[in-house]
């Protein structure tokens, strides 16, 4: 059993969550402690299992970043709250949500609180979260400003909970709370069997419906989406997670368009109206027309659409204005005025220095205090006692110059809660985040939450972020009969859906191009490998030289070697060096790798962890090898082998792990089209060059189509044009032949036409027929095709035509399915 080492060393002033003044374990902790004591392998083993689950692979996303490294650590020991205590917290938090919602309604409405001296006007006017265009003068006011809300609580030494921080702009963390519970339910099931822990599920079930209930009235079937700033956001994974928990699409600003009086998602099947956005994008960036003009993340016209009442946002635009800690000293009076009640849940003592009395007091006690800017984006605390004399003086000058921009408070001593330190239980400082969601006229509180050991010297640092050690919050139930075992399933309430036409056009576009780039990478690597292998064998025979000349031409076409070098005599050192220099920045291979990296990282949520973990390190490794291979063939060959294997792994994973929905169709469509083009221009390219290199051309075609072995098995090695061309062009059982690609594209285009209702015609059957007749020419009398050049000309023309038609097809796909949106630009007048 773990000892409770260190509990006696806790600072005398901090409230101890576990042990009473009489040194006995508080009753509500005894359940979990006895479960831990009884674990056969100890808690350590369970911690491992929980960690594994958090990092588990699979088709669903987890809350880890792309390098697989968590930004936070997980403490398996939950924080336990009694029913009585929770109901007090609950009513306090609900009251606070109602209060902040009412303050927002006034601030964005009549602003009587400012005129009546209940709220200093500066806290609104100089607040960077105050969005003037959202002030309702004649449009429709949101039903709720605060559709959901997160609040950080801390228990002080007197045993009372106080509000440390309010999160109203984009309250985050609820995804972490749900995930934490799921993992704990799986790794510590016996605890949930013996302890009556309140379940999160009913809240989550209601959340979807209560958000939708805030959609504009009169919609028969309102729809919802999660609006994210995109994959570069630090909390992107929570956005993905929430979209899955709620079973609604995840969209970026670019996926949405405001027209015909509503906001719609651009999908393959056209515009799909959306009526409620769970907003994870900062208000300032939400509309380049009326908010920040330099935002590329928003939806032009969104503000006007909210004004006209066609869409609701959770939270409403501009709701961050009440987040400022400077609001806290005024909440007591605001509560009396707006709710007619005293505040149930006190805030920490905070002094807003815009009031002369507060300023005098703070300056007199400055060395004992923590100062925070309260109106700017950066609200990091300054611990005055830690400053050098000169810094302190500068701070004092800053405060005196703009006192209204600062708050001051005393350091906080959070309560101590047991934490698993890897071997034992040890006390650690703890703050707790609680989540609420609007429901009807009131709010509903998630019976649980996220406890956190704050980082650094004060628990006021990085309040918005969820770094550090996170743990689950267990609210004990009054009556054990109410409690069912928590679900270990992560998602629920998903409607049955088969990857249909709802796919966002932007995502389809990205997948299509990812497919093309992956295939291009493969083609480039094969071309280079074929060439490098020939060169690396040492002495170049006249036959080799012929083949290398053909390859050199292709390398130059593919921008893998510069033209002069590629066309130089392959026996020379210049050719070999040029070959080894493919890693130069402007060369095709590197640009293709860049494109793949960009596309995969922007669509991380669409791939399994396996695909991402396979792709990430290999990409870095390949780059490294390419760079170090400068001038040397052996490391280049090794890097090329790695690329070819990497593409094979990706193909395997895509083939086996991606459902055959529209997403996969676009990925594969891109690959097929690129490969078809490679066969038409790359593999058949040498035939178009000069009829004297017959043998070499045939060999190159087979090699680039990875069909040499098949050919050998079928025809025992003798190279003849008709069988070679049949294998690389007509044989639709050969996955590298042109015909195979054409058939596969037909299948995809058919499927897409069925689900989206938009048809893009495949290449005409006449082309197949022409290709067959061209190949047939070579089956006749050798004298004829060898010397008259007629068959060759026919083949050349057909290869060109195929290439042109494939370009046309790609354009048609782009026009039909992808958000064919030109770049937005701002226009405006100036004055003289």
């Amino acid at each position, binding site marked *: 059993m773990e000892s409770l080492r260190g509990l006696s060393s806790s600072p005398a002033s901090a409230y101890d969550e576990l042990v009473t003044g009489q040194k006995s374990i508080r009753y509500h902790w005894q359940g979990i402690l006895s479960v831990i004591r009884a674990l056969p392998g100890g808690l350590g083993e369970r911690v491992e299992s929980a960690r594994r689950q958090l990092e588990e692979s699979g088709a669903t996303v987890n809350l880890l970043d792309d390098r697989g490294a968590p930004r936070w650590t997980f403490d398996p020991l939950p924080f336990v709250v009694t029913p009585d205590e929770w109901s007090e917290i609950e009513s306090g938090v609900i009251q606070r949500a109602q209060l902040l919602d009412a303050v927002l309604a006034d601030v964005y409405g009549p*602003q009587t609180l400012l005129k009546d001296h209940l709220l200093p006007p*500066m806290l609104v006017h100089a607040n960077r979260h105050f969005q003037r265009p959202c002030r309702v003068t004649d449009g429709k006011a949101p039903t709720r400003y605060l559709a959901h809300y997160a609040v950080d609580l801390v228990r002080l030494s007197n045993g009372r909970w106080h509000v440390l921080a309010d999160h109203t702009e984009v309250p985050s963390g609820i995804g972490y709370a749900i995930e934490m519970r799921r993992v704990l339910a799986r790794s510590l099931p016996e605890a949930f069997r013996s302890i009556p822990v309140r379940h999160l599920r009913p809240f989550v079930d209601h959340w979807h419906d209560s958000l939708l209930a805030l959609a504009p009235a009169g919609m028969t079937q309102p729809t919802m989406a999660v609006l994210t700033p995109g994959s570069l956001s630090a909390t992107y994974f929570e956005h993905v997670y929430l979209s899955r928990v709620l079973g609604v699409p995840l969209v970026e600003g670019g996926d949405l368009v405001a027209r015909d009086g509503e906001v719609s998602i651009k999908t393959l099947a056209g515009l799909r109206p959306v009526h409620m956005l769970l907003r994870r994008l900062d208000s300032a960036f939400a509309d*380049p027309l009326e908010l920040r003009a330099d935002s590329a993340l928003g939806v032009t016209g969104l503000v006007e659409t909210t004004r006209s009442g066609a869409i609701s946002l959770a939270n409403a635009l501009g709701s961050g204005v009440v987040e400022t800690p400077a609001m806290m000293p005024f909440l007591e009076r605001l509560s009396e005025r707006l709710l007619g009640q005293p505040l149930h849940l006190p805030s920490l003592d905070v002094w807003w220095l815009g009031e002369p009395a507060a300023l005098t007091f703070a300056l007199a006690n400055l060395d004992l205090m923590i100062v925070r800017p309260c109106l700017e984006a950066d609200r990091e605390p300054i611990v005055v006692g830690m400053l050098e004399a000169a810094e302190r003086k500068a701070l004092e000058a800053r405060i005196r110059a703009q006192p209204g921009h600062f708050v001051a408070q005393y350091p906080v001593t959070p309560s101590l809660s047991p934490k698993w330190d890897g071997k034992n239980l040890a006390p650690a400082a703890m703050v707790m985040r609680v989540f609420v969601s609007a429901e009807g006229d009131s709010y509903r509180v998630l019976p649980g939450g996220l406890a956190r050991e704050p980082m650094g010297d004060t628990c006021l640092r990085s309040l918005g972020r969820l770094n550090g050690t996170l743990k689950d919050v267990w609210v004990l139930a009054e009556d054990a009969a109410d409690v069912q075992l928590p679900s270990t399933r992560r998602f629920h309430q998903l409607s049955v859906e088969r990857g249909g036409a709802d796919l966002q056009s932007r995502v389809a576009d990205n997948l299509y191009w990812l497919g093309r780039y992956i295939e291009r990478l493969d083609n480039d690597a094969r071309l280079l490998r074929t060439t490098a292998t020939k060169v690396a064998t040492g002495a170049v025979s006249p036959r080799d030289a012929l083949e290398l000349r053909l390859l050199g031409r292709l390398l130059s076409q593919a921008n893998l070697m510069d033209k002069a070098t590629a066309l130089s005599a392959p026996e020379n050192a210049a050719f070999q060096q040029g070959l080894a220099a493919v890693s130069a920045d402007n060369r095709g291979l590197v640009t293709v790798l860049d494109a793949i990296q960009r596309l995969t990282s922007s669509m991380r949520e669409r791939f399994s962890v396996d695909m991402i973990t396979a792709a990430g390190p290999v990409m870095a490794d390949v780059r490294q090898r390419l760079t170090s291979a400068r001038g040397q063939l052996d490391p280049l060959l090794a890097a090329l082998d790695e690329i070819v294997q990497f593409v094979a792994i990706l193909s395997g994973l895509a083939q086996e792990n991606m459902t055959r929905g529209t997403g996969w169709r676009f990925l594969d469509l891109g690959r097929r089209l690129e490969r078809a083009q490679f066969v038409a221009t790359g593999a058949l390219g040498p035939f178009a060059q000069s009829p004297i290199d017959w043998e070499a051309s045939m060999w190159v075609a087979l090699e680039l189509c990875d069909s040499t072995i098949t050919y050998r098995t079928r025809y025992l090695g003798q190279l003849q044009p008709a069988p070679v061309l049949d294998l690389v062009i007509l044989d639709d059982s050969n996955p590298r032949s042109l015909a195979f690609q054409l058939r596969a594209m037909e299948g995809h285009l058919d499927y897409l036409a069925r689900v989206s209702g938009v048809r893009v015609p495949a290449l005409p059957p006449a082309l197949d027929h022409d290709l067959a007749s061209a190949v047939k020419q070579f089956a006749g009398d050798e004298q004829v095709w060898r010397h008259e050049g007629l068959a060759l000309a026919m083949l050349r023309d057909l290869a060109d035509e195929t290439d042109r038609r494939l370009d046309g097809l790609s354009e048609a796909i782009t026009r039909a399915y992808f958000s064919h949106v030109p770049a937005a*630009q*701002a*226009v*405006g*007048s*100036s004055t003289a």
Partner: protein
Amino acid sequence: MKYLLSHRTSYTYASTVDSAQHIAHLRARAFSGQTVSSISIETNPIPALAVQHTDHFGNSIDIYRLDKPHHRFDIEVRAAIDVRFPDPPPAASTPPWEEVRRALNGNGFPVSVEASEFVHESPLVPVLEELKAYGAASLAPGRPILEAARELTSRIKKDFEYHPGATDISTPLAEVFAGKAGVCQDFAHVEIAALRAHGLAAAYVSGYIRTVHSKEEIELRGADASHAWVAVWCGEQAGWVHLDPTNDLVAKEDHVAVAWGRDFSDVSPLRGVILGGDSHSYGVAVTLVPTD
């Protein structure tokens, strides 16, 4: 003074614009200094959506949404306006500027909530030490606020060169100040910054100025385009007084106000987001004809 106003803006695009949204601060507002007897806006092409609202500052805004492909966009406002700014009180009779500052601060709860909003920095008017020093030269202790503000207005006219093309809307204020040249909106921003740095309230006013072409009269700058100046809050009693640093004038009958805000970014006459179009050019034509 009664005026007939026509203000026409045309965007011409190098290639097709698929869709566009524009927001306009073009409808002259009514206030104690002017009455607007008629006003109308016409656009071509006809937008899919055209709505009118009142913004946070009480200005009229129009929002247009164009959903059909187009190559140009024309918007013209016509109005009949009667301007009669009340005479400001004698400058010497206005309160000392420190008293006005105290009222605006009000220990957190200012006397005039509306005026106090114009004390803080804004997107195009940051707090700058050099502008604080520039303003200080006119703000001697105990000096009546309007006297100080009038002197500041004169100094700007004297110290800065009116030079269209020297700046554009993206030129930061510090650069304008260092270069001592610019156009009306730059001078307005300079004056606003110099006053706000001392805790005083200054608003940016966009509008027009009467252009006089007869030889006998002095030619006023800002002709044939939009104009901008400053409104300074001179205490509860005197209220806002409109000062034009480009021409060193107190607004009386020659200035037609359209909208006011913290700086240009709050009241830009017309701005929009277009999809497509490649490059664009625009032309503005303003005629302001006195009808008295």
